[in-house]
């Protein structure tokens, strides 16, 4: 009754930990998107604020997509290849764009 794939699995569970790190980061992004929506709808809800809030939610979806693709890759193989620079850059730029939307909302 020894499970077959266990022999080849990384005992340190590195892919799993990386997967959870992506999930945690997406969750942090969710908090930011929710706060952005709250700020956008709070007090008046001008067209500019609503646009920036909606943009934040779209950026969150982009981040979710990046995370999901990476997680699928991590789950598909026992020896995942390293993260490609476009993914890392896209994830960071999503974060930066959220901050820019935030600046518009706060102002």
């Amino acid at each position, binding site marked *: 009754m020894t499970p077959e794939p266990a022999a080849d699995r*990384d005992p*340190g569970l*590195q*892919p799993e*930990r*990386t997967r959870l*790190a*992506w999930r*945690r*980061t997406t969750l*942090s*992004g969710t*908090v*930011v998107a929710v*706060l*952005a929506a*709250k*700020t956008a709808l*709070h007090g008046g809800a001008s067209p500019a604020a609503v646009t920036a809030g909606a943009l934040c939610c779209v950026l969150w979806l982009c981040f979710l997509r990046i995370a999901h693709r990476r997680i699928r890759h991590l789950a598909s193989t026992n*020896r*995942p*290849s*390293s*993260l*490609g*620079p*476009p993914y*890392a*850059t896209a*994830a*960071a*730029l999503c*974060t*930066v764009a*959220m*901050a*820019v939307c*935030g*600046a518009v*909302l*706060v*102002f």
Partner: protein
Amino acid sequence: MIEFARNARLWFAPEEVRREGSTPDYRFSLANERTFLAWLRTALALIGGGFAVDQFLPDLRWGWRVGLALALLAAGVLCALRAVNHWVRCERAMRRGEDLPVSRFPALLGLVIAVVAVAMVVVVLVGWEG
């Protein structure tokens, strides 16, 4: 700054990073990726903090509130850009078999957070009295 601009080219060029050196143990790459994600979470937390200052301290004067919120948002932007830059540098150093890059950024960020925290305490105390 010039070094930063030179690295920025690599942010978009996977083939250029992979052309150099040899592929390290995948576990090292994954650890580097997790560090990158941890920095990204820090950036997101700073951005969330900016929103929180704006939303949950309504009694502050407009200038203070917006100033603090923008400072936190700017710190988040810096943190995110630095995260991807440091990740690329680590990735390249591992491929070339060099020492990992050292950085003054964590100390700097720690100091800035401490200053902002002190400013918050002062602002909240002054805000209550005024």
